[in-house]
């Protein structure tokens, strides 16, 4: 059914269609509307049977999900930014135990400074937690990914994080096609856990493993995640058969076949980039965009193929490794640089800052002209930054390195900006 609906509500509807049995969550913007939505569906009796548990922290929310999943219940939770970090220990635990939990991350910046706006630092902080990470481009995409996420999680016994940009997607009202219950039921069978706490067949889940087997356990987790690279396209294809709409997959390319310049991005910014690509194509520039839908496991092959033939790749990232480089950018660079493809990382949209088309067009133009630095920050206020760097250089409390460090910073800053 096509509905004009807020992203969060749409996701709540989609989640409910997946018949989760235990939902626990702790409120945090911009995730709130999602769990309010699911909560209301449970309260009203539309989603049943389902236990909706108001917990005291995100750490508890993930922990409740762990317990529920280990007992054979389909478990769901949602969080954002600091909430994801609050549950970090349990996030690793869920994947380590191979529990097929599905979690929405309404992506939000992490502080300090506290900031409720969107970026990807939360998801990126936990990119190596052993979860599958899917990034939604639109609310329709988010709805579809959630349905696929349950299927994927349970097929592989691996937890799946569906990332959708906070506010940009969660709070925007768009037309979304919500699949029917019948469709979802056909696509997603009841949860058949691969291991379960059962008094009739007791096992011990969560053993302590020492160096003698830890590497093997990790290797196996890795192998399982890589298996998702095969699974995801299959499940996307099946989704299309059942629901009648292509959605999901590893990467999705737009006008990139003959592109010399390809933009790579995660999440909702892809939409903006597509508009910019259209404009620039009209100007005759051979430019396209590839959205990375599946960020973990990292779809090296699919992405490598999608970037084949590009002269340059510009990665637009809503997070970066502070003191290092871009996260996605570094991975793309590793993938294509030996083909002679030049890569640029543009850090953009931090803490909810908007990514204007004009700015994008500007940096893409710079990239095409070879004027762009390897790593740059979109719309950085140089005046402010330089003033502060200067003040730091003067600060007597920073002696004896006063003379050197600020200069390094400045030089670096000059190099990377």
């Amino acid at each position, binding site marked *: 059914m096509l509905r004009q609906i807020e992203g969060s509500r749409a996701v709540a509807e989609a989640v409910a269609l997946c018949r989760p049995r235990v939902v626990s969550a702790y409120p945090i913007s911009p995730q709130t509307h999602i769990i309010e939505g699911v909560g209301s569906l449970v309260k009203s009796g539309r989603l049943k049977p389902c236990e909706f548990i108001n917990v005291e922290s995100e750490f508890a929310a993930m922990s409740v999900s762990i317990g529920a999943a280990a007992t054979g219940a389909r478990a769901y939770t949602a969080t954002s930014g600091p909430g994801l970090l609050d549950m970090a220990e349990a996030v690793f635990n869920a994947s*380590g*135990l*191979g529990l097929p939990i599905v979690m929405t991350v309404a992506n939000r910046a992490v502080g300090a400074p506290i900031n409720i706006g969107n970026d990807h630092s939360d998801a990126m902080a936990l990119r190596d937690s052993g979860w599958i990470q899917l990034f939604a481009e639109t609310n329709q995409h988010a709805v579809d990914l959630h349905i696929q996420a349950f299927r994927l999680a349970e097929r592989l*016994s691996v937890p799946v994080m569906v990332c959708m940009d906070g506010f940009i997607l969660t709070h925007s009202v768009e037309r979304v096609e919500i699949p029917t219950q019948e469709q979802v039921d056909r696509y997603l069978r009841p949860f058949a856990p*691969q*291991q379960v706490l059962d008094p009739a067949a*007791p*096992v*011990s*889940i*969560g*053993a302590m*493993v020492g160096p003698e*087997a830890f590497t*093997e*356990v990790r290797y*196996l987790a890795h192998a399982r995640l890589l298996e998702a690279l095969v699974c995801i396209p299959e499940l996307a294809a099946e989704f299309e058969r059942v629901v009648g709409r292509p959605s999901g997959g590893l990467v999705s390319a737009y006008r990139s076949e003959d592109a010399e310049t390809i933009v790579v991005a995660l999440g909702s910014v892809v939409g903006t980039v597509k508009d910019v690509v259209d404009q620039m194509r009209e100007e005759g520039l051979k430019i396209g965009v590839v959205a990375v839908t599946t960020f973990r496991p990292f779809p090296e092959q699919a992405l490598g193929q999608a970037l084949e033939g590009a002269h340059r790749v510009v990665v637009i990232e809503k997070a970066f490794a502070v003191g290092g480089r871009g996260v996605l950018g570094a991975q793309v660079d590793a993938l294509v640089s030996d083909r002679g493809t030049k890569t640029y990382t543009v850090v953009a949209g931090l803490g909810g800052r908007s990514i204007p088309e004009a700015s994008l067009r500007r940096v893409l133009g710079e990239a095409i002209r070879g004027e762009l630095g390897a790593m740059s920050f979109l719309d950085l206020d140089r005046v402010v930054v330089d003033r502060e760097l200067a003040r730091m250089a003067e600060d007597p409390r920073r002696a004896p390195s006063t003379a050197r460090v600020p200069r390094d910073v400045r030089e670096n800053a000059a190099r990377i900006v």
Partner: protein
Amino acid sequence: MSEHPFAITLDAGSSRDNRTGSWRVERPIYVDRMPPCNDACPAGENIQRWLYHAEAGAYEAAWRGLVEDNPLPAICGRVCFHPCEAACNRGKVDEAVGIRAVERFLGDAAIAHGWRLPERAPATGRRVLVVGSGPSGLSAAYHLARAGHEVVVREAAPRPGGMLRYGIPKYRLPREVIDAEISAIEDLGVEIRCDAGVADIASAMAEGAFDAAYLVLGAQLSHRVQVPAADSARLLDALAFLAGTEAAEPVAIGRRVVVYGGGDTAMDAARSAKRLGATDAVIVYRRNRRKMPAHADLVEEALAEGVTVRWMSTISRVEKDKVLVEKMELDSAGFPQPTGEFTNLDADCVILALGQDADLAPLAALEGVEVRDGLVVVDAQMMTGHSGVFAGGDMVPAERTVTVAVGHGKRAARNIDRWLRGETGGPPPRHELASIETLNTWYYADAGRTVQPELEAQRRQTGFEEVVGGLDEPNALFEARRCLSCGNCFECDNCYGVCPDNAVSKLGPGERYVFDYDYCKGCGICVAECPCGAIVMVPELI
């Protein structure tokens, strides 16, 4: 191969592959220790064991355990001075277990139910002469008969029982009880010939073709001290007086009776005198109460019945109706010394209870028998210097009590049996003592000792009815259950329950437990928490 995710999920109970027993430097082992009561029982009863049965209400099994060692539980259950109770560990917790009372309960139950003593072993064809049918003779006859020997008991008196019948008054030991326990022994095929005194042991043995003899003549002669007395004075000998109370026509004693002496006999004489109509029964004794040889319970009971005692006094002279008493004082060494202070005491009659001696004349012709201080010397096997002739009870140097006599009888019988079979070697070594330190008494529920009912004061002055009553069944059960089972597993399951490593297996009722040394880490908790001290740690042999 497990069907679960590798390493993260494990199959239940798989730790049993890990034999933690290798950690151990000490191992626990189960032991049986000697309970102090058993250790102290002169008859060598396995008290803890028969109480164990009684605790479960298995009274016949308890009685059977008891008569393994002592065929006279109804008798000993009344008159034994219960050294077991003095030794009982429970006495250090609250009050000693009323062992004697339970013993009596079992003995009485056996009489009431007609339980029969165990069958005799097949006949050996050997003949043993027992001279004297006191407790020691009865005990020996019983054990010898059980061993399959032919036993003839010869008794000088008209009825069997020795001092049980002719010494201990019936208000403490009803005659039906004596008769019942003796006839149970007779039922085993033991022949008791009364009015059949033996004047010469050697010839009696030869005449009857006996292979061995056990002499238990007792101490029948009242000890004589020179007490100056007027011709008209009425002096009685305690043994004769007490024996006389058995007769149809008791001896006349008058209203004011003085008993001279401080032993059990003196107490019984004074108490019997009261029952025979004496208004005053005064015991004159030359030392103080603490030094008195009579057993405390008997003194207590005598005083309760109105018997009075002149402590620190000797009789200097006996007149027709009074005695002259001299006050004594203890010297620095604790011996009584005359003070020269005299008082008169009215007395219609004086009963002398100054001890008993053995009449050893019948042994005169036996070669090799050694006599010292009027008593027959025996070795550890109870044998006199004359091979094949054993002796015990009051005529050998030992404490003079019924139970000691019973114990001698048992020991002699077992040694006679061995001697007849030509066996050497003694009984197995005794277990280490289960002292209170080896117990963990916290586990035992608090429970005061049950009190036996006593005859009301009035009836104790007028007749020979039994003074102390027996326990009824619930009380006997309760009392038995007060036993701590010192040094012997009573299946409390503590070791089974407290082992952090489940290294104790429980084998089921009566089967006790075993350690599983594959897993026992040797922590010692089972040892510390065994209430009765039946487990010890021993170093692991590496």
